[in-house]
Structure formats: structure tokens, C-alpha cells
């Protein structure tokens, strides 16, 4: 699942006609205030992006300060309130033990966010390093590393995660590491191709021809210019990791039952599909909203921000 290419579509990709009529003008001055104003205008034209940023901000807040959103205990069941539908009293309804689903979703954010961050971090660091080494050193080192990466890509990511879970055992952190390791290959690939692209760029040769040493070329030119697409991938990977982690906890390998992890919540609701629709539906919507928001932000990072910078 985590291999899907979420190369988000840009709906209005007309060719840029903008060969400007007046090529020479560079208007002077005005940086600070104009930047902010341009940022605001950029955001105002994209209500979807603003909404996405808001969703992510809420998820992060819920992860760190869940009590901002609810004062209920996510683990405490009130038997009298079992299977209450969504309403003013319980926004997301209650489950078979009378626990408030909204409180469980809010408190689950911390677990899910932690797992996601670990997964992306593992993939980013390990994959990025492999890609950087392969791309910059080249030769047989590159060949060996990239062959390994090719093989890792040949195994469906979920299968690789499952094998790792089998070996490492169950639990949120282990699931997160397994998801992260399964996406090392795609990071290595993007990092390497970016490093190769930048390394072949004329401005890198220009730097070399001015006499710059290799480490200075690497740090000042190659790495900063190669980083952009890798960060975009990290954002996309964030959304995929949310999905992968919740899939694995849905399958029962995540945090053990009372913990309110998002995937586990949906999984529990599965037993009451016929009589309590909200049990799976609303936590699932939360996951979907988070992933959608992340993907929207990734798209903005990928291309649109270039028009504003």
C-alpha cells in the first residue's frame, strides 16, 4: 500500500504561456511585507489547502494536548451509555462498553501520530542515507545498494511489513518501525535520482570548475537542491504511513485492545456494523481526513508553492 505513487494531479496544468513580454524588469525593494502578503494571497486562493492545514493542526494539537478537546477519559466506560448514537452528549457516539468514541479518537491521535512519525523518520533517515551515498559515490557501491533497493521494491510493502512484524513482534512502535523499513527503498530511490540529477546539473559542474572541493559541492549545492523532492516524498509517505499503520493495527498487530489507536477503533467497530454504524465510520473518517489533508499539503509543496516563492 505504501508504494502507491501519489503523484498528485495538478488539474490545471496548461503549458505556461508566460514567456513574458517584458523580459528585463526586476522591480526593486519590498521584501518582508510583500512576502507575507503574497503568502496570504496564495492561501486565500486555495481554501482546500487552508482546510488541510487546519486539519493537521488539530491532529497535532490533539496528539499533544488531548484535554484541549475533551475532558472525558477514553478508557472509562459508562455501562448505562452503551451504544449511544452521535449527538450533543457524545459527538461520535459510544461503544459497546459505553466509552465516548470522540474522546477515544482524540486520545488515539497521540498513538497514531507517534507511530507515523517513527515510520517516516526511519524511512527518511535510512533511505535518504542509502540514496545519498549511492548517488554521490557511484560506481560499484551504487550498483550494490540500488540492486538491494530494487529487490526491496519487488516485495509488496505490506508483505515486508508483515514479515518484519512477525520477526519483531507486535505493538505500536514495532509496527511503526516495520512500516518505516518497508518504505526505505522508495526513499533511497528518490534521493539517489535527485542526487544524480543535481550532480549532473550544470551549476554543480560550474561550482566544480570554479575550484570548489567535493564536500563543499555536496553540502552547498547537491544536498540543498536534492532535498526538495525528498521532503515532498516524506509528506506523501506521512499519509501512506497513517494508512499502513492503521491497516496493521486493524489486522490486530498494533497496540493491545484498550488503547484507542485509530485502526483498532475501526476494527472493533467491525463487530457492530449492523447496529452501531458510527463505531467504524467516524474513526475511519478521521483517518481519511488526515490522509487527504496530508496529500493536499504534499501537492502544494510539490508544485504550487513554486508559483508563490
Amino acid at each position: 500500500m505504501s508504494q502507491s505513487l501519489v503523484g498528485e494531479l495538478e488539474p490545471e496544468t496548461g503549458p505556461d504561456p508566460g514567456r513574458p513580454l517584458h523580459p528585463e524588469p526586476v522591480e526593486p525593494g519590498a521584501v518582508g511585507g510583500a512576502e507575507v502578503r503574497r503568502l496570504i494571497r496564495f492561501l486565500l486562493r486555495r481554501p482546500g489547502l487552508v482546510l488541510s492545514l487546519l486539519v493537521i493542526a488539530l491532529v497535532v494539537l490533539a496528539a499533544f494536548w488531548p484535554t484541549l478537546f475533551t475532558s472525558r477519559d477514553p478508557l472509562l466506560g459508562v455501562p448505562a451509555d452503551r451504544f449511544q448514537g452521535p449527538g450533543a452528549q457524545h459527538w461520535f457516539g459510544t461503544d459497546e462498553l459505553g466509552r465516548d468514541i470522540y474522546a477515544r479518537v482524540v486520545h488515539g491521535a497521540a498513538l497514531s501520530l507517534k507511530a507515523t512519525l517513527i515510520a517516516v523518520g526511519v524511512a527518511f533517515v535510512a533511505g535518504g542515507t542509502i540514496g545519498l551515498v549511492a548517488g554521490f559515490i557511484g560506481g560499484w557501491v551504487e550498483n550494490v545498494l540500488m540492486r538491494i533497493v530494487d529487490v526491496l521494491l519487488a516485495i509488496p510493502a505490506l508483505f515486508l511489513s508483515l514479515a518484519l512484524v512477525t520477526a519483531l513482534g507486535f505493538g505500536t512502535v514495532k509496527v511503526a518501525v516495520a512500516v518505516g523499513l518497508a518504505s526505505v527503498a522508495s526513499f533511497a530511490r528518490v534521493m539517489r535520482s535527485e542526487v544524480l540529477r543535481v550532480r549532473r546539473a550544470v551549476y554543480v559542474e560550474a561550482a566544480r570548475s570554479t575550484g570548489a572541493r567535493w564536500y563543499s559541492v555536496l553540502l552547498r549545492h547537491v544536498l540543498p537542491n536534492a532535498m526538495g523532492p525528498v521532503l515532498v516524498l516524506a509528506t506523501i509517505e506521512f499519509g501512506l504511513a497513517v494508512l499502513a499503520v492503521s491497516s496493521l493495527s486493524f489486522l490486530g498487530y498494533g497496540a493491545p485492545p484498550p488503547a484507542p489507536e485509530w485502526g483498532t477503533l475501526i476494527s472493533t467497530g467491525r463487530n457492530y456494523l449492523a447496529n452501531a454504524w458510527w463505531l467504524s465510520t467516524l474513526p475511519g473518517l478521521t483517518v481519511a481526513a488526515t490522509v487527504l489533508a496530508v496529500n493536499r499539503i504534499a501537492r502544494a509543496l510539490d508544485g504550487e508553492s513554486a508559483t508563490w516563492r
Partner: protein
Amino acid sequence: MSTPSGPAAMPENLLEISDLAVSYRSRSGVVRAVDGVDLTVRAGEIVAVVGESGSGKSTTAHAVIGLLPGTGRIDAGRIRFGGRDLAGLSERELRLVRGAQIGLVPQDPTVSLNPVQRIGDQVAEVLRVHGLADRRSAPLDAVDLLERAGLPDPAVRARQYPHELSGGMRQRVLIAVAIAAKPKLIIADEPTSALDVTVQRLILDHIQSLTEELGTAVLLVTHDLGVAADRAQRIVVMSRGRVVEAGPTRQVLDQPGHPYTRQLLRSAPSLAVARPAAPPRPAPGRIAADRPLVTVENLAKEFSLPQVAGAVRSVRAVDDVSFSINRGETFALVGESGSGKSTTARLVLRLAEPNAGRISFDGEEITRARGEALRRLRRRAQLIYQNPYASLDPRFSIGEVIAEPLRVFRVGDRASRQARAREFVDRVALPASVLDRRPAELSGGQRQRVAIARALALSPDLVVCDEPVSALDVSVQAQVLELLAELQASTGVAYLFISHDLAVVRQIAHRVAVMQAGRIVEIGTPSELFDRPNHAYTRELLAAIPGGQHA
């Protein structure tokens, strides 16, 4: 549709564009690309639309057949053709005009053919679409058309795919497509700018003779006033979306009315050959004891090609090349693409490793220099690239770009480097305000000035200029060449100047070497070479320069 002004269509006017306005919508607003253009083409005549990039010439041509790219829209004006206003036609009606009554020869033949369809089918498609041939006769007609377009072995070619043909051959295929339905008008949009000069002339000759034979009119879009002068009966000069001058070719060239036309004429390098401008500044007299700055002896470079059937193949990009460059001199290497001129330059700078031969710089052999010796060479020999945008790190500010060589060699401290950068920005005639900008915010000419400033920051003895102006508009070209000459006069730097453009070389070089297939075939001063070329290839190159027929 603003005012249906202009005189009533004269009968002989085939195409009559009046008051045309086209704009593109972008995120930052609406950009007018063409504004109030009037233009007529009579039956059977060649009219050239000349202008620099962004002048709206290509947009005007595409508006005629309703093929504006992306967000382009016709805002106002009429395009009368064959008694109808094309601007008001629906897509469906326009389709009957395209291909059948107006043909298009596009800009870049290498990407203008469908890569997965056979040549013959692509030519036959025009006939099939307009019902001019049936399933059986279309392939045969296509072969005939390819033959008329001057493609050798047309029956074989028809069964091949585009990637199996050279650029010139592909342009002939596109000509066959354009003439297939015997249209009354052909729009040729920079039909040869992607081709080598010697091929350019053949293609233009063929378009001209074919259209004369068929009585087809041609709307020729070009940035090269020389090409226009050679081919067109009338010239229309466009600048910033407007027509600034129009008239018979002779009149436009001999008595240009508009200052922009005069500027274009002055700076058009190909015409400058026909009537030589001021010769380059004299080379500084060689001091007797002075040895050449660079000496290259019997240099060779091979590239290996991908293995085929286990055999290792290689190609000699540079083959037994010898020359020397004196201090303060401009030495030019000219040749077509693939002649090995750029590789030679990279070998001299040690950006590529030679297979054989010797290179010495200021008396020191550098053929295999490494480490510190190589860094000493880097400090004294710099490079200016063809594409200034690609050669500037997009994340660096202009100030950082220019100061980078100083930082690399630890010259001065941060403040003094910034001061130095400011000084150089001034020397290349840019405002100090560019120092904080990024390369993307500058125009092509400005970027190349920045690259020049960077190259000169360390006060090198040699600067290699690899096609430094070929990516720039002609009027900007002249300015940049002037700047290079000025800087040479004030700093005494030597240039190794790489170019495919003989006209440019004539303006700037003290000595010229002509390269073909990796070898130098002739070396001499510009006047020797241009007036008394010895080698057949030099003569061929000279003959291919557009604008010659006019002079």
C-alpha cells in the same frame, strides 16, 4: 471583436489579419501576448514575421489555425481567410480548414512526430481525415508526398518510425504532412531553428521551391532577420505583441523606419557577416618573450558507446587537435553540433580526461594535474556556459553566486567578498539591486552577465566561453558580446570562444579554428577564413549562413 476596421478585403489577399489581440491567462493575471496586429498574406507569396522570443510572432501564427497553447484566447480582431473569419469559427469548422487549407510546419521536428506511429501513416492521416484518399490509396499517396518533400527512399522511410530518421529528414516528413492536402497557405513556425546550419539551408530551399511550384503562400515565422531577408517578399517586424514595421523586404532592410528594426538589423549576426561591422579590437601585440597561455598538442578524446552484440565501440570526439592561445587573445572554435568543440574546451579545463595529447597552461603541463595543481588551474581558468540559467544554483542569491569562487579560494572575508561581488555586478552593468535576487528572477541576458561576473571574480587568465550567447535573443547577444570585448580590453583576459555561429565568431575572435568531426580543418584570422576559405567545409559553412543572398 472590437472594430471591424481596415479596408475591405482585396481579392488577392489570401490571409488578412486585422486588429488581432490574444492573451494568456495565468495565476498572476491576464497577459496580452498579441495586441492589435494587422497582417496580410497574398496568394503565393512568402511573408516573414520576424521578432525575438516573446514578441508574439508565434502566437499570431498559431492563432490563425486556432491552435493557441493552454490558456491562450483570441480577445479581438478578425482573421479573414478564403472569405471567412477564422476567429469566429467553431472547433469543428476550424478542423476542416486545418491541414486541408492551411498547413503547419512546426518548430522542432525531433518532437513533432508521433513516436509510436509509422511515418507513412502519419502522412496518410491528413488525407484520410479530409477524405482525400481511401484506406488503400492513402499509403501510396503518402509515399509520393514524402518523395516530393525530398526524402530519399520514401517507400522505405514510410514504414519506419520517427526515431529512425535524422532531424532534417523528420522536417521533410512534416513538410510532406503540410503540403499533403495542397493547402493555399503554409504556416512555418521557426521551421529550421532546431537544425544544423547546413541542413537549415536545404530545408528552407526545399520549402521555397515546393511552394513556388504549388503556388502556396507561406507565413514564415523566424527570429533570424537573415532568413527572412533571403526568403520573403515581405517582412513584418514584431516586438512586444505589436507590429512595429511591415513592408517589402528590400524596403525594410534598406530603409528601416522603426528604431527597433534598426536595432534588430544592427544586432542580427548573420547579416553582419554580409556587411561586416566593426572588426574586433586588435589582439594585444605579443611580447617576444611571452609564451602562449595555453598550448594544446595532439589532443584526443574517445567516448565509448553502449555495447552492441558484445563489441566495445567508441567514438573519437576529439582527434589530434593542436592549437595555442595567447594572453589577451580571443581564440574561437567553430563547428556544427557533434564536431567536438565543446569537448575540446572541457578537456582544456580538465573537466574531462583526455585519452592522448598534452595540455600546458602558462608553461606548466596540466594534462594529468591533480589535487593542488588542479586547483591552481581552476583559479586561473574559468568557464561560462551556454545556458546561464542552468549554470546558476537556483537556491543561491546573485551575490552568493558571484562571491562563490572567492569563498572557495578563501579570498578576503565575508564583507570584502560582498563588496567584491557588488563591484563586479557593476562592471557587468547590472543594478546593485540584483545582488539579493535569485537567478529565476532575472532575464536570460542578465543571467549571462551574472555568469560572466562569476567567471571574472578571481581575475583569471583564461575564460572558456561555451556558446555564451546562443541561448539569448539577438539584441541581447550583441550586448553580451560587447561586454565580453570590453572586459577583455580592461583585464587582459584570454577567451577560448566556442560557437556554432560563424557570424558571432567574426564579431569577437582574433583567431578562428574550424572543427569538423573531431578535427581542426582550418585555423586562421577571421578575415583570412571568411574571405579566402581554404577548406571545403569552411566554404560550406559560410555558404549556409542566412542573409547572404540578400547581400
